[in-house]
């Protein structure tokens, strides 16, 4: 270890810059009090380095650590767990920098930075974060180099780190591809491992979907083999809501089975879904998935469910048949539940429904009449409907006449139930946008939708989309066409084609990144090996491949780095050549022998060539050690002499 026990000022700055780089992405994720404290501590350290002052007393640092612990506990009610632990770590780093003064302390701080970066990936693993972490890794290498050699300037330190990285990147790629992957978790994830994900919920009340619509975040991507289904068949089924308490729609417990209880028919679509984690079990399959989905169950209301909540990005291959007839033989209990309405809720809507029942005997005719009723009401589709009171459906249908898909579907279902037709609300996503760059259908949170289903004897559960009836553009052209521009987030607007093109390109890149970098797991690894013609790749084969690849690369690198003598100039090369010629005659020049001394010895040993040898040696010595640099002509003369020299 080093004998130096203080850090030079420049090294302190380098350490601080590295720490700031690794802490910056954390600040938005930790409580603001802790973030502020961390920033202040870093600033304090920088000031101390600037003043070349002593470190603060240990008691002060301990008090600060305790303060940090209190802030952390106030926010998370614990000091352990993922988020609290990371928040504490991000405070520990500046504290370590304040406390440390030896290169070893500096190294400990750098290791903390490495660990924090891994923590950063828990929050986000996008391309920009990867770039940020790469920059931070370079900073860590450069700072390590300066800890090792304080005299090193910033530029050579960075250049050296980049050279090291250049040698390391191919090795890293080999490791990334061939390192035998194990699918986690190795131990149970702490409860807060996936906090705060956006997505559908298992209940719906006025406003819950319009809130979701504000988000341009991607919900999932679908990669179709062959044709895409037309927009009006792109209904991605999420939770089905049957129970209504007058305000809120809720899911009803269902049975699940390993295969669907319906027969598929009509045209089928094969596709692969890549779901963003949303911490709920539903898989948002296109209506209606055929059997054969791996690691999934089929619920009795036709949703496809994962066995565990989707807590990491998930890929699943599916086959759907939108034209299938489902629920032909529905249980009476479920139909009863799909008819129940709370006492005294929405009296005007209920009355309208009863009037429909009186006018039409056939349930199918009642459905058509209800849609006609709603169209006649001239309802408008808007993201910002007026606030509803107790009887949301009444106010929507008869007073404000402004609503969003949840208002349409909710009012329609109440109308149908009052008319004696079993009906329920289905939530999920509708539509999606094809990315022209990679042809993948992207479905965002803003595509969240609520529609209705009615049960008709002989036809089973039939989808009715009351929103589509009033605002057909919503279904055919997507939400951006159906709503006035001012309601939409900037990137969702249609008129900015340039931004749209940019967004498409960016999302195609992100999708490749998600699929091939972030989603590279044990099964993807197997898939890749199969494509490489190695169907039975187990960890032994992978390790062997990895070893072979790494060995080849390191061998090449070692050959490149092998210490080579600095290139001799032309003059020295000629002299070496002459010496080699003599060496072949058994006259080896010793390291310490001056050219003329050696020539004297050689001349004695080879009297026949004495003149030539002396001539060459003197000529060389004269050019090499003479007061003026050798001319080209003089070197050429020597070259001729050496060339003609045949001992």
């Amino acid at each position, binding site marked *: 270890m080093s004998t130096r026990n203080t850090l030079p000022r420049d090294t302190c700055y380098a350490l601080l810059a590295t720490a700031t780089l690794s802490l910056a992405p954390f600040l938005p994720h930790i409580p603001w009090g802790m973030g502020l404290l961390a920033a202040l501590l870093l600033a304090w350290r920088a000031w101390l380095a600037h003043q070349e002052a002593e470190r603060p007393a240990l008691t002060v640092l301990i008090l600060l650590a305790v303060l940090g612990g209190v802030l952390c506990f106030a926010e998370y009610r614990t000091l352990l767990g993922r988020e609290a632990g990371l928040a504490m770590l991000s405070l520990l780093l500046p504290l370590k920098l304040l406390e440390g003064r030896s290169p070893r302390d500096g190294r400990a701080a750098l*290791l903390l930075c490495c660990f924090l970066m891994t923590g950063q990936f828990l929050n986000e693993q996008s391309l920009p974060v990867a770039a940020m972490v790469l920059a931070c890794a370079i900073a860590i290498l450069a700072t390590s180099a300066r800890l090792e050699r304080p005299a090193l300037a910033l530029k050579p330190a960075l250049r050296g780190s980049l050279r090291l990285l250049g040698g390391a990147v191919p090795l890293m790629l080999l490791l990334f591809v061939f390192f035998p992957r194990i699918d986690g978790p190795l131990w149970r994830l702490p409860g807060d491992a996936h906090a705060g994900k956006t997505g559908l919920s298992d209940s719906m009340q006025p406003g819950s979907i319009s809130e979701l619509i504000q988000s341009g975040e991607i919900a999932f991507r679908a990669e179709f083999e062959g044709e895409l289904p037309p927009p009006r068949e792109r209904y991605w089924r999420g939770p089905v809501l049957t129970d209504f308490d007058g305000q809120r729609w809720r899911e009803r417990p269902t049975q699940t089975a390993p295969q669907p209880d319906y027969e598929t028919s009509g045209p089928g679509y094969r596709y692969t879904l890549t779901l963003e984690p949303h911490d709920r079990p539903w898989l948002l399959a296109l209506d209606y998935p055929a059997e054969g989905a791996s690691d999934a169950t089929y619920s009795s209301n036709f949703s496809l469910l994962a066995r565990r909540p989707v807590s990491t990005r998930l890929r699943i291959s599916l086959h759907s048949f939108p034209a299938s007839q489902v629920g032909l033989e529905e249980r009476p209990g479920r139909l009863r539940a799909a008819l129940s309405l709370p006492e005294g809720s929405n009296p005007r809507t209920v009355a309208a429904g009863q009037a429909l029942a009186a006018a039409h005997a056939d349930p199918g005719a009642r459905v058509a009449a209800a849609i006609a009723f709603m169209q006649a009401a001239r309802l408008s589709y808007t993201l910002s409907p007026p606030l509803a009171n107790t009887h949301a459906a009444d106010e929507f249908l008869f007073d404000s006449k402004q609503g969003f898909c949840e208002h349409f579907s909710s009012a329609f279902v109440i109308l149908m139930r009052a008319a004696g037709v079993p009906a329920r609300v289905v939530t999920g996503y509708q539509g999606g946008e094809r990315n022209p760059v990679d042809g993948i259908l992207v479905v965002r949170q803003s595509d969240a939708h609520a529609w209705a289903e009615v049960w008709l004897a002989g036809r089973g559960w039939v989808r009715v989309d009351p929103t589509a009836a009033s605002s057909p553009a919503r279904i055919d052209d997507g939400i951006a066409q159906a709503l006035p521009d001012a309601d939409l987030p900037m990137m969702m607007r249609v008129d900015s084609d340039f931004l749209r093109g940019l967004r498409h390109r960016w999302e195609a890149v992100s999708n490749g990144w998600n699929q091939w970098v972030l989603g590279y797991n044990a099964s993807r690894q197997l898939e890749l090996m199969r494509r490489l013609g190695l169907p039975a790749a187990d960890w032994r084969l992978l390790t062997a491949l990895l070893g072979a690849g790494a060995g080849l690369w390191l061998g090449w690198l070692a050959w490149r780095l092998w210490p080579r003598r600095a290139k001799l100039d032309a003059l020295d090369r000629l002299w070496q050549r002459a010496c080699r010629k003599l060496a072949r005659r058994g006259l080896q020049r010793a390291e310490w022998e001056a050219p003329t001394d050696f020539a004297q010895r050689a001349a004695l040993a080879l009297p026949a060539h004495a003149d030539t040898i002396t001539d060459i040696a003197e000529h060389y010595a004269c050019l090499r050690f003479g007061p003026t640099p050798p001319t080209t002509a003089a070197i050429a003369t020597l070259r001729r002499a050496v060339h003609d020299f045949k001992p």
Partner: protein
Amino acid sequence: MSAATLRQRFRRWATRTRTPETQPIRLPQRRVYVLPTRAGLALLATLLAMLLASINYNLSLGYGLVFLLGSVFIVHILHSWRTLTGLQLSLSPSGEAFAGGMAQWRVELVNEASHERPAVRLRDSQGRELMLTDVPAGQHSEAFIALPCSQRGLLQPGQLSVESTQPLGWIRAWSYIEPDAPAVIYPSPDGERPLPEGWGDNGEGRSRERPGQDDFAGLRGFQPGDSPRQIAWKQLAQGRGLLTKQFASAGSPACVLDWNMLPATLPLEERLSQLARWVLQTRHSGARTTLLLPDSQTGPGEDAAHHQACLLRLALFGLERSR
């Protein structure tokens, strides 16, 4: 077998060539070893923790970061190794050393390669850092090392380790050398006895008060070791350079530093120490001396070379024969 003996065995095996080695010593690739430093081991432990976290939370980029830093670690091995491989060292004793003090060597490092060899360290067998220097590409650099010397005689620098932890300090590359560069250790000048009787009054006294006024013989160029008393200050002031006044020595009686003058009861080393002190005293005053030892006579003489020869005699007295 204890760890210390194991280490000793490894060191002996590692040097492998005939020791001490003839100089210059060129470090061949097979004699350069690499192992992680403590900082490197700490990094590996951190990487392992990061890898476990990445597996547990399925963090693809976590894998990426671990693999990136791990690969840098591996590439670091090559870089450390090449910092030393092919480096050429030679040690030569430098300056005077007296028993009980420090002996100094000049270390010349020759880098024939086309890459820089930064932060090359030398350590003694106890692991103390002796020097730290950079050797630029295709150039020489020199540094000095000092080792304690307790006994007069010849002292080899012993087994030294050459090491480098460049570029990041995660990996240490090192090699053992045992160069043949004996330094002469003079006896430590000691003893309170005055200069030999009779000389102090005539010889030294005279030379001190009237430094050979009558016997001035001429000027010669200054040589290191010449007494400041003999410097021709006047000529220096005239801008003629540093010159030393020479005195016709034939007339001035030489002071005889005789082994037999010292009491027979005095132990050998103390006797040599006393003689060494006298030699230094006479050197300081620039006096003409003769050193008489049981087996040799040195001098008379008064220049630097003479005093050096005297000290050498004292340093090696009784050692050469036993060899």
